[in-house]
């Protein structure tokens, strides 16, 4: 297992380097000069501009600049935010836990919805339950998160007035009320993201369980006298999860798409909404750092999926 883990870790380094190379190329190809402002300012003589360029190494060959940039990204030296006047890493570390909390709960909700429904659908294919579940799943992943978010706000906040539609980091209550307020304001963003993920997952689970459930070893398990529940849960679902985990890993980049949008709709103070405000404020260091953080999260989660895969399918560890 540890050898497998090590190999996976080593594979993710070139992936990360590759992603950073793509990011850097985009930035390097982009027009505009960080010293443009100085160029138009008549008080700054051209020699000063030139020496500044030389000092920051802007005239160096692109390879050198990439290595320097990637090095400082790895060291956590992400620069200085133009608009909020703090270091980018402080800014992102403030926001990251909220994003991870909302994303994690949403993913959990998705799995909790998809596993039982997908399995029950597959156990009785083409039954009334299956048809309703399949149709709802289809509708669920055809509804874009920005529209579901607005519908939720319209229904739960405006029409019923049950839930707040703005996520606040500074809740003044204490004790149980504090936690309750936090849960209450997280319900809608988590539900929007989680149900979207759950809808796609339900289809994966259904088809994976359907593939497994007709195999001979399931009949063997039944013939041994195992109860139907044990047969399905321990024998069928566990094996069906192997392809599901692969598909989930492929879905990881799309989770972040949903995260950015949901954070923006409900004004969740995470890195997704930070990204949007940074773009609106032309805050390039923050934009680059957040895109890099998202890429790192994708790579880390892929690694986690690989580990889960190794646990679900013991044959893999020894390869």
């Amino acid at each position, binding site marked *: 297992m540890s050898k497998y883990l090590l190999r996976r870790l080593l594979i993710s380094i070139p992936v990360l380097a590759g992603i950073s190379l793509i990011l850097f190329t985009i930035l390097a190809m*982009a027009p505009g000069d960080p010293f443009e402002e100085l160029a138009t300012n008549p008080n700054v003589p051209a020699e000063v501009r030139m020496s500044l360029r030389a000092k920051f190494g802007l005239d160096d060959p692109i390879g050198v600049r990439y290595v320097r940039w990637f090095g400082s990204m790895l060291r956590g030296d992400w620069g200085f935010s133009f608009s909020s006047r703090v270091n980018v890493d402080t800014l992102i570390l403030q926001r990251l836990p909220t994003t991870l909390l909302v994303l994690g709960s949403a993913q959990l909700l998705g799995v909790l919805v998809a596993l039982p429904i997908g399995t029950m659908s597959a156990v009785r294919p083409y039954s009334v339950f299956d048809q309703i579940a399949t149709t709802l799943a289809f509708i669920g992943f*055809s509804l*874009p998160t*920005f529209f579901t978010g607005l519908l939720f706000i319209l229904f739960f906040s405006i029409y019923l007035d049950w839930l707040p539609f703005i996520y606040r980091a500074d809740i003044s209550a204490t004790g149980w009320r504090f936690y309750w307020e936090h849960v209450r304001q997280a319900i809608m963003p988590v539900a929007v993201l989680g149900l979207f993920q759950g809808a796609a997952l339900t289809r994966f689970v259904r088809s994976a369980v359907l593939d497994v459930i007709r195999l001979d070893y399931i009949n063997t398990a039944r013939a041994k006298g195992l109860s139907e529940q044990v047969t399905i849960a321990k024998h069928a679902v566990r094996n069906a999860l192997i392809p599901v985990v692969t598909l989930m890993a492929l879905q990881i980049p799309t989770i972040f798409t949903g995260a950015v949008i949901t954070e*923006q709709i409900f004004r969740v103070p995470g890195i997704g909404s930070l*990204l949007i405000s940074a773009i*609106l404020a032309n805050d390039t260091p923050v934009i680059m750092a957040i895109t890099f953080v*998202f890429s790192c999260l994708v790579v880390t989660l892929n690694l986690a999926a690989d580990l889960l895969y190794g646990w679900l399918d013991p044959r893999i560890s020894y390869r």
Partner: protein
Amino acid sequence: MARALPSERLATDVRVPARRTSPSLWSEAFRRFRKHRLAAFGALVLLSMVVAVLAGPLVYRVPIDEIDFKAKLRGPSAAHPLGTDDLGQDVLARMLYGGRISLAVGIAAMLIAITIGVAVGATAGHFAGIVDHTLMRITDLFICLPQLPLLLLIVYLFREVLKKALGPEAGVFVLIVAVIGGLRWMPVARLVRAQFLSLREQQFVEAARGLGAPPFRQVIRHILPNAMGPVIVAGTIDVAAAIIAESSLSFLGLGFPPDIPTWGRILFDAKDNLDFAPHWAIFPGTAIFLTVLSINYIGDGLRDALDPRKVLSH
């Protein structure tokens, strides 16, 4: 989707060979497609949407930018079937106009994704070895990219240049289409490569090779046409994904400018007036939802229709 009774299934099985006097692969696929009721219905809905956005502005001649503050934020009425926005502009007219852009972005981005995907997949599958290995590592790398953040980054960095070069409308269109297409080709590349690997060992390709067909002809005439089934399915789903991507971008206020009211852009403008003008958000949102749902069902139907090995069970 109802489970067919055994006798029914038998009846179709008996009927099929009699009809197969001239079985073309495509007419057979079309027959299978029509059997998938929801897919057929989806095709109908999508077709009527396309007709509406193409012919609608010719029939419904209300200007999209006629400002009328006396009639602002009104619900649906006879004068404005889908209501008005905060400037008193007609929502229906704007949706019909913006729908053209939304659908065009979807189709154009899909074509780009498919072209890159087929090219990369075919090259990898045909040459194998080091070329294959390199291309597939690049594909894996692109799969790891977080799509929306990157999309936002590229649009942010390059929007002004393209606006200057091609004008505001065409510039943003080209940029958005190119970036969405350029970030969605990976599944197609994988599919095509897998198809190539299995197809080039098949006997009919061997026969073509034996008859002296040059490699290029083998690929174009023999392998590629047989690899197209899954590509068509993936392409269909890509149209939906591209429409969502464009809408997301516009919804975040970073896509098309306000004078080009794509459905996502209308939603962006409408979202701050949800409490007193819900119609303004609900109609464009429903349009996006219906389009995406129809396309997804069509993709589902095509998947069933284009897989000749699959036996029709319903």
